[in-house]
């Protein structure tokens, strides 16, 4: 099972815990994860990526296996560790503070 970690505000919105598990056929990509996430939790539509263009919202980041995948092609295959559920796919809000 693929493990997706959501930021706290989206956990509350979707009514889920920190980790959401998804079962997806290969190839597992950013787009496939987000499509499945939004299909399973419609409240998340528009909060991670634009509903029409599917472009990532500017202050959202995607991390996997200690790499920043935010600007990678949404159709690039994700690392095997993510596919195998050994490493999570992290969705983060940009840090705020001062």
């Amino acid at each position, binding site marked *: 099972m693929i493990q997706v970690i959501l*930021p706290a505000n989206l956990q509350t919105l979707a009514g889920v815990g920190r980790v959401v598990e998804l079962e997806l056929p290969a190839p597992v990509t950013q787009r496939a994860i987000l499509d499945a996430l939004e299909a399973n939790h419609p409240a998340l539509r528009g909060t991670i990526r634009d509903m029409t263009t599917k472009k990532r919202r500017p202050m959202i980041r995607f991390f996997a296996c200690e790499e920043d995948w935010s600007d990678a092609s949404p159709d690039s295959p994700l690392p095997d560790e993510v596919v195998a559920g050994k490493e999570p796919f992290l969705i983060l809000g940009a840090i705020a503070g001062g």
Partner: protein
Amino acid sequence: MSKVRVLVGTRKGAFVLSSDAGRKKWKVEGPQFAGWEIYHLKGSPANPDRLYASQSSSWFGQVMHRSDDGGKTWETVGNQFAYEGEVGPHTWYDGSPHPYEFKRVWHLEPSLNDPDTVYAGVEDAAIFKSSDAGTTWSELPGLRTHQTASGWAPGAGGLCLHTILIDPKNHDRMYGAISSAGVFRTDDAGKTWKPINRGLRSNHIPDEDAEVGHCVHRIAMHPSRPNVLFMQKHWDVMRTDDGGDTWHEISGDLPTDFGFVVDVHANEPDTVYVIPITSDSLHYVPDGKLRVYRSKSGGNEWEALTNGLPQKDCYVNVLRDAMAVDQLDPCGVYFGTSGGQVYASPDGGDSWAPIVHDLPGVLSVEVQTLA
């Protein structure tokens, strides 16, 4: 016995404050939508248990919610606000053309007689309508495509449509106010709109009495007299007696005529409330004193209401959607501050007390009077 429910939108969630008709003892519930900016939440006049809420965040965008049990539980509804047709530009801060982009919903105005119909005023300025209880939203594009729209420019808060008023005697007539474009009126249920800014003068635009370009902060109406509107403009408090065709100034003896809120007493159409703010560069009350000003003569003569409000060392602001009145007699008046206080007066403004002291900064206050 009647009850009141005060719906408070803040920078970090929504709160529901409720009381009996005495309006002395309050129950505080919340935060709902914790951590999110709640620009506005409002109940349907046709079904007070039907509430709509605009939830937004710079990170996660716009989310919309609906409640069918008076705010106890909420469900997410549609959050797709797509402009109709080809989307042209408005004017950017530097004078260049800038494409329209949806940013957030500032204001929700439920229909007066259909709980499933609700209007949304959004940034960049446009009006949307839902006829299915918020599930889907369609733009009423006649406003955004008005021939003057390419010249509309945002104020510091953005190009926002922040106020929608529906004429209770003629539901085809509505008013929308935009910062910083001005006030617009439709007489055909939103198909076409016209600017109604004659009489406004604004020295931040090259032509002080131009057709559009005025930074209107808020307009208010008494339902028994819908042709009379009161306006808090960036500077100046204004009034129209002809549905916006002409405006005249009623700032009179106010200590400063800059401010954001204006509202009308529920039972006295000529009793008006404003909260003067020092200036456009000093967004806090003058002299460290939080004073509501009341005119019982429809403007020009104002009295300071201070009983129960802090009269020293107070430097809060009160934003445009953060004042409301209930429908009881005597009329209750409510407002929320940037410092997180929500004040209530159960006697038309003669005396005040805080309902809560320490909420996040208040963005909006609405009141429901319940049987």
